[in-house]
C-alpha cells in the first residue's frame, strides 16, 4: 500500500516508470531497414554467387571493387541494425525477469556491434589493400 504520509506527490511517484517513448522509432527503423534489406540482400546473394569457386585473387578483386564494397558496407549496416531490433523484440517477448532481460538486451547490442565491426573491418581492409 502506498502511504499518504509521504511528502511526494502521486505524480512524482510515477514519473520515470512509463515507457521510454522509443517504441515508434524502433518500429519505423525496423521497417526502413527491412526495405533496405530487400534490395541489399538480393545484391549480397548476387555477390556471393559471383564469388562461388573463385580463386583468392579474383575474390579479392571483386570484393574490393568500390561499388561492391560500398554495397557490402550498406548491407552490413542495415542488416546489423535490423537484426538487433528484431532480436530485442524476441528477448522482450520471452525473457520477463528484469535483470536477465536487461543483460540479454545489452548482450544483443554487443553482438550486433561486434559482428558489424568485424565485417566492416574486413571489407575496408580488402578495399584499401590489406
Amino acid at each position, binding site marked *: 500500500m502506498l502511504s499518504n504520509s509521504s511528502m511526494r506527490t502521486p505524480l512524482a511517484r510515477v514519473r520515470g516508470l512509463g515507457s521510454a517513448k522509443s517504441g515508434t522509432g524502433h518500429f519505423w527503423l525496423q521497417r526502413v531497414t527491412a526495405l533496405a534489406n*530487400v534490395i541489399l540482400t538480393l545484391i549480397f546473394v548476387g555477390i556471393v554467387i559471383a564469388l562461388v569457386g573463385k580463386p583468392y585473387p579474383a575474390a579479392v578483386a571483386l570484393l574490393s571493387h568500390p561499388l561492391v564494397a560500398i554495397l557490402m558496407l550498406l548491407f552490413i549496416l542495415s542488416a546489423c541494425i535490423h537484426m538487433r531490433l528484431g532480436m530485442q523484440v524476441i528477448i522482450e517477448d520471452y525473457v520477463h525477469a528484469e535483470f536477465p532481460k536487461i543483460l540479454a538486451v545489452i548482450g544483443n547490442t554487443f553482438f550486433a556491434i561486434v559482428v558489424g565491426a568485424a*565485417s566492416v573491418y574486413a571489407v575496408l581492409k580488402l578495399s584499401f589493400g590489406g
Partner: protein
Amino acid sequence: MSIAHRVTGTGLYLGTILIAAWLVAAASGPAAFDTAQAIAGSFLGRLVLFLYSFSLIHHMVGGLRHFVWDLGHGYDPQTRMNMAKFSVVVSAALTVLIWIVALVLR
C-alpha cells in the same frame, strides 16, 4: 508463420557470425580464405549454406507480407492463408533458383 519468421530471423542472426568469419578470413590472406572456402564447400558447409539461403529468402518474402499488413491490407483469414502458402512456395522456388544459378556459374 509468425513463429517461422522468428526462427528464421534467429538463424540468420546467429549465422552472421559465419558471414563475418568468412569476410575476416578473406581479409586475412590466401591461406585463411582457402580454409574458409574449403569449409563452406564441404557437405556440411553446403548444407548450412543451403539452409541459410532458404532462411534468408523465407524471412524476406515473409517480411513482404508484413509490409502488406503495415499498409492496412490482407487481414481477412482467406488472404492470410493464401499469403502464408504463397510465401512458402515462392521462397522455396527462389532458393532453388538461386542455387541452380550458382551451380551453373561456377
